[in-house]
């Protein structure tokens, strides 16, 4: 199998990737080669959204991105949204709303909410549901997640 060597721009830094296999996903490279394990992997077929990251500002499933094809693009993972120990407004709203239970879906959902509110600062309830449809949560029943989005919108309005 071909070993690949390339550089990815992740969370504002150039990160060297050594010995990637040809066709390896961005999810696998982030977690197993770069140690960025905040991004979760579950279905590896784009169904669950737990591996969501931003590539050049677009929300994508990192399991469906061939890592070596993302050279030169700006990749933002959950580790890149806020400094460690200082949650950003979306993360804080998830905590305040009790939208985190087992926590496995949370990083992907945080990325999805960032993507949504970046484009639509005042989404309707239907828009929120449609935009988060690609992120599966098996604990919360989604009510508190929708609440967390609403709280974030309110916090940003007061700023």
């Amino acid at each position: 199998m071909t070993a690949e060597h390339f550089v990815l721009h992740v969370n504002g830094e150039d990160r060297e990737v050594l010995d990637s296999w040809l066709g390896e996903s961005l999810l696998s490279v982030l977690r197993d080669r770069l140690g960025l394990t905040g991004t979760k992997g579950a279905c590896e077929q784009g169904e669950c959204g737990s591996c969501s990251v931003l590539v050049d500002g677009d929300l994508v499933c990192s399991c469906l991105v061939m890592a070596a094809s993302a050279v030169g693009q700006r990749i933002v993972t959950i580790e890149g949204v806020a400094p460690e120990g200082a949650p950003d407004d979306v993360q804080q709203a998830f905590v305040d709303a009790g939208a985190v239970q087992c926590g496995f879906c949370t990083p992907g959902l945080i990325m999805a909410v960032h993507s949504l509110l970046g484009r639509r600062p005042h989404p309707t309830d239907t828009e929120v549901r449609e935009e988060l449809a690609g992120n599966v949560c098996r604990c919360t029943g989604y009510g508190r997640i929708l609440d967390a989005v609403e709280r974030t919108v309110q916090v940003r309005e007061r700023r």
Partner: protein
Amino acid sequence: MPVLVPTTLRETLVALDDHPSATLLAGGTDSMVEYNEGRARPSDTVIALSRVAELRAWRHDPAEATLRVGAGVTWTELMEVPPAALVPALAEAARTVGSPQIRNTGTLGGNVATCSPAGDGLPVLSALGATVQLASPEGERSVPIDELMIGVKRTALRPGELITAVTLPVLEGWQGYAKVGVRNAMVIAVASVCVALDREAGTAAIALGSVGPTVLRAAEAEALVVAAIDWETLAIPDDTLTRIASLVSAAAQPIDDHRSTADYRRHAVGVLTRRLLGRAQSTGVTS
């Protein structure tokens, strides 16, 4: 580098000339699933198409009344105006594809290349009479979509050939897409239908997805629509709608599988057609 990331069509064709057996990677939403699960491997060279400028562009030609959509245009982009206003059925189909994440990466060209029986864009392309532009180091050609789709995940693409664009007519009339799945989001079509009514040409197209090896056309039902429709109001008498729905069901060639039964699918395409023709009528004179 075994993964090439060209940014122009010229570079892409040079790369294809150098590596005729290269794997072409569009959005990756189909092929990466295969690689992740180890069911398939890319060949020794991968040409990633997501940053080829010509493939990412669309162009409306009002004089020709066509919209040329680059093969790398994503579903998210097709949901947005202007393309969504020019080919609304394609925008409706785009909105039913996967999730926002999938729609941000999945492309129209990839949908054509994969040629799944359930591909959401394909009934729309067939109903609208799209042509697909292909390029290879040897040259270019243009193929009607119905000739390009030849079977379950099989196209008439030749080795070393690349889908560059899909050209769609901008119709005066009405068009719509509807699909049945197990829920409202993130579903593969159990059955789907696109109806296109071309007021200028006086023609109707009804294309069915997920009920055959590839997209099927309901020719007898189309003829009955043309015979019965009031082109002013797009109204069709109720008893005729019932006959049209049964002709559509009869045109389907569905199978039983883990997603649904043949009986249900046959029934569903009739219901969806009736629903779409009802919408055409209720939206009335303007498209």
